[in-house]
């Protein structure tokens, strides 16, 4: 899957709601169906960002636990 990913952003240390704002901005230039990889902190970011992404019509397709952060792959809707 790694090769299909069009863009990666590391949001480790970025708090809500800025992490979602930056996720949205990173998705904006992509085409529908493109994949974005986001590194998110555990806790609030993992509760809020995937849910907001869903509300905006995109889809989380993979979540991997990296310890205190998560690698989240989002398909643009």
């Amino acid at each position: 899957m790694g090769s299909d990913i069009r863009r990666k952003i590391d949001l480790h240390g970025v708090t809500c709601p800025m992490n979602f704002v930056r996720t949205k901005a990173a998705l904006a230039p992509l085409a529908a169906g493109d994949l974005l990889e986001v590194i998110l902190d555990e806790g609030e970011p993992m509760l809020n960002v995937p849910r907001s992404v869903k509300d905006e019509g995109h889809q989380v397709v993979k979540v991997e636990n990296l310890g205190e952060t998560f690698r989240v792959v989002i398909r643009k809707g």
Partner: protein
Amino acid sequence: MRIPKTIIETIFAQGERESPNEACGYLAGTNGEVRKAVPMTNVDHSPEHFSLDPREQFAALRQSRGEGLDILAVYHTHPASPARPSAEDIRLAYDPATVYVIASLAAYKKVGMIQQRQKEYFAMRLRAIGGDLTAEQLRKIADVADKYGRSGVHLSTRQGVEIHYVHHTHLEEARQELASAGVGMGACGPRVRIVVACPGNATCRWGIIDTKAVARDLDQRYFGVETPHKFKMAVTGCPHNCAKATENDIGVMGAILPRWDAGKCIDCQLCVNTCPTKAILRDKGSNGDAARYVLDEAKCINCSLCTSSCPVNSWTPAATGYNLFIGGTMGKIPRLATLLKRLVPSKEELYRLIENSLRYYQKHGRKRERFGHMIDRIGVEKVKQEILNG
């Protein structure tokens, strides 16, 4: 002798109508259970004395006998003094078979008014169910605080507003002004307090239940009902527990039971990684079978995190209900609540269990013993079974 709350309210209503004079009458019933109040004319028409009208006495006796009831008690009100027999009350209580009931309007009106350290001043605790007040009510509260207090208000830990520094001579006027905007008095002492609630599903994206509707129902049924010690209820929309249901004597919490639908699942693993209690397990399957997700219901806290974040709605609520907690308290000896029943399916069942809980506490609780401490004294499992089956 037992007097139902509705009859007590009838007596106070009559007392308010006839105030500043004393109001009086008979209480009729059988086997120590009062069935009705028979209001009578105070022929003295006095704020300090009462005499029953002899003709009404005779009529009341005859009618009660016709209905199979005995006269159990004579009641009268004290419009401005405590519910203690005056010297005259004692002198005139010559019938040892009759109970003499005194209802003090002064005490009744003072519920929610708390004497301050500065003895001539009181804090007025106002009643806001679930923390809700209209803008108009807030303006009235501000006016009353300006006029009778020292301009400010205090916000209590139970979503209430208190006006401090009201001089005792102004309490009644202040109470009436607040009442004109529909702002009533809160409660203090050994009784059911204001019901607190979070905003619930009306506005909160996590809310599962209509918390305000449940809070209003509970307030209407139980506000001010007397209990062995203070009794607090909270209604919270979901297991985020913002309204702290588990720190209250009765805690109602919106809850869902998640169900996994294999057909829609894309195996992204978001649920496994966000479930706060690790109640979702991924079985990776063998021989090329797709992964399966399994819910450990014992670990699940019914919070809806999986169902609301699942990107393909593979997790959905199979059931919605109320998790009911009993016996939580903070205070001097904190105790988190005991889960009485998970996913209570209907309001009717919820209210039945709350009714049973309150009655059980009224029957078994000792004076100044909180509900949770009573549960620990008697035994958690025993109390749970008796309330569930009661």
